[in-house]
């Protein structure tokens, strides 16, 4: 992994209003095959992407929110959600889907993928990347 690049996918848009959330997720899933160091950040309206109990039946659009739960299978397990963005929208971590992964190095123990970070922490995480892809 030493020559792997650090890729950060920055999600700042709400789902369904535009296609960015869905097409961002599609890049992440394809990108996972390249064995780079992948992280996802959800801030601003992007935090709405992870809200649980999404139901698109009446809208007649595919509900892609269950796909976030597959990220762990794809070894994408660094998911940063910004605290300030959650608070500004009246949300807490409990309003979001519970995303987990199985840690290969810890006897496949199930662990949380989502880490709530402050804007200042997220700024440092952004600064530590090689590639930042924004959606």
């Amino acid at each position, binding site marked *: 992994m030493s020559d792997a690049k650090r890729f950060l996918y*920055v999600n*700042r848009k709400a789902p369904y209003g535009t296609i960015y959330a869905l097409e961002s997720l599609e890049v992440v899933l394809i990108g996972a095959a390249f064995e780079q160091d992948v992280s996802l950040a959800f*801030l*601003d309206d992007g935090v709405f992407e992870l809200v649980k109990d999404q139901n698109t039946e009446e809208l007649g659009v595919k509900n892609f929110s269950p796909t976030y739960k597959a990220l762990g299978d794809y070894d994408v397990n660094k998911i940063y959600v910004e605290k*300030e963005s959650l608070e500004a929208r009246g949300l807490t971590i409990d309003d979001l889907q519970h995303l987990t992964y199985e840690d290969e190095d810890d006897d496949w123990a199930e662990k949380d993928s989502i880490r709530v970070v402050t*804007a200042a922490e*997220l*700024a*440092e995480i*952004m*600064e530590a*990347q*090689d*590639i*930042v892809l*924004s*959606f």
Partner: protein
Amino acid sequence: MLHIVNKSPFERNSLDSCLQHAVKGSAVLLIEDGIYGAMKGTQKSGTVEAAAKDLKFFALSADLKARGIDQDRLIDGVEVVDYNGFVDLVAEYDKSQSWL
């Protein structure tokens, strides 16, 4: 890092969000509708003026001219660059992030 903002600060929060996440020593390049964030005497000028202590600000000349915004209407310290200057900034900073 070079932050690129292309949204008017009066329409979206891209500039605010960018400034909240830009660490000291980074640069912010304002392009497209983002150049309105470089104007002095607006409701948003104070934010940019405060951030300019830690960050360098640039604005793209093509977008300023297209929108009829003269250089003398810009916040002091905002540097105007052309596309060549844009390319130089991308090369100078180790990565870029677009606040779409």
